[in-house]
């Protein structure tokens, strides 16, 4: 069987880290991944200037600058930029997340939070996941970003869904007679198909 491949030959990645050595290391990792172009910036404010000039395909940010940290940057991206830029995947990398930041990480609209240790293998796995990410993009008063539910099982039991597409969690009584076992067997039985 052919081995799985990753194609980043057309991709531009914006890397933001306020620790110069960490920024260099992120750059080396993405060089190894074979990205077409990487743009490195030492602060979120500088990253904003880049996005005001041009789009990128992926953003990886680890920035604790009080003027604008990774969480504030992501809120800006999701709320203040036009589509499709606002949909750009953001991976927020964090070493130690202070208590005050844990909830902010969930609510700022990032695609992923990766807590260190950060190995190339972990980062690669997350990028591959993003390539197949089928989460919808949600925009409401209190949140803008990818659906925070990785799996959508509908609204919690006993609650009415807030979305038009939400189905009732209550299945209700059967409206038709049960199928008999012979019918079920027929549905599951392998069929010969002539091509």
């Amino acid at each position, binding site marked *: 069987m052919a081995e*799985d491949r990753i194609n980043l030959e057309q991709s531009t990645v914006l890397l933001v880290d306020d620790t110069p050595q960490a920024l260099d290391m992120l750059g*080396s990792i993405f*060089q190894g991944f074979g990205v077409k172009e990487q743009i490195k910036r030492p602060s979120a404010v500088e990253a904003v200037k880049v996005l005001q000039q041009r789009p990128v395909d992926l953003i990886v940010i680890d920035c604790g600058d009080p003027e604008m940290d990774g969480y504030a940057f992501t809120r800006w991206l999701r709320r203040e930029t036009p589509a499709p830029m606002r949909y750009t*995947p953001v991976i927020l990398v964090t*070493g*130690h997340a202070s208590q005050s930041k844990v909830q902010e990480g969930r609510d700022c609209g990032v695609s992923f939070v990766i807590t260190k240790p950060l190995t190339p293998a972990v*980062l690669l796995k997350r990028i591959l996941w993003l390539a*197949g990410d089928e989460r*919808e993009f949600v925009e*409401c008063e209190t949140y803008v970003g990818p659906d925070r539910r990785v799996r959508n099982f509908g609204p919690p039991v006993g609650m009415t869904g807030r979305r038009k597409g939400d189905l009732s969690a209550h299945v209700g009584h059967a409206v038709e007679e049960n199928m008999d076992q012979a019918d079920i067997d027929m549905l599951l039985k392998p069929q010969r198909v002539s091509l």
Partner: protein
Amino acid sequence: MTEPVITRIQTSLAQQMAQPGGRTLTDVQRRADERLGRHKAEVMAEIEAAVAGLESLCAARPQAPGAEVYRLASRVVDLAGFFDTGPLFDAGYSLADTADRMTAADAWDWPPVQVHVQALRLILNAGCERNAATEQLLSGLKAVAAKARS
């Protein structure tokens, strides 16, 4: 309250990655590991400097040290977190967490910090190897951190 707007999207990243070509996962991971490894000596020197900074703070015991201890401990975590530094990363993380919680609770106490910094030095001197001694050290730090949080 306004109705949420739900949009089904496909990002440019997903479109590009769906194109044929590229490299095998084994190849890109090997290349990334190899390039990252070139930084290790320089980064270990930076971590050494951060631990030395923490030792100086413990010796001087300045007023309102929470932010600076947290900054240096976070630096250890940020840099060590790129490599397999096992117990060094864990001890740095525990110190950052302890400093953060003590600062938030306005209940600063030097002994837990001192114990963490001594552990960081021991782990560094032992080459960051994970063994029975470092496991015991880390479980001691866990107890110290839990006590500092209570």
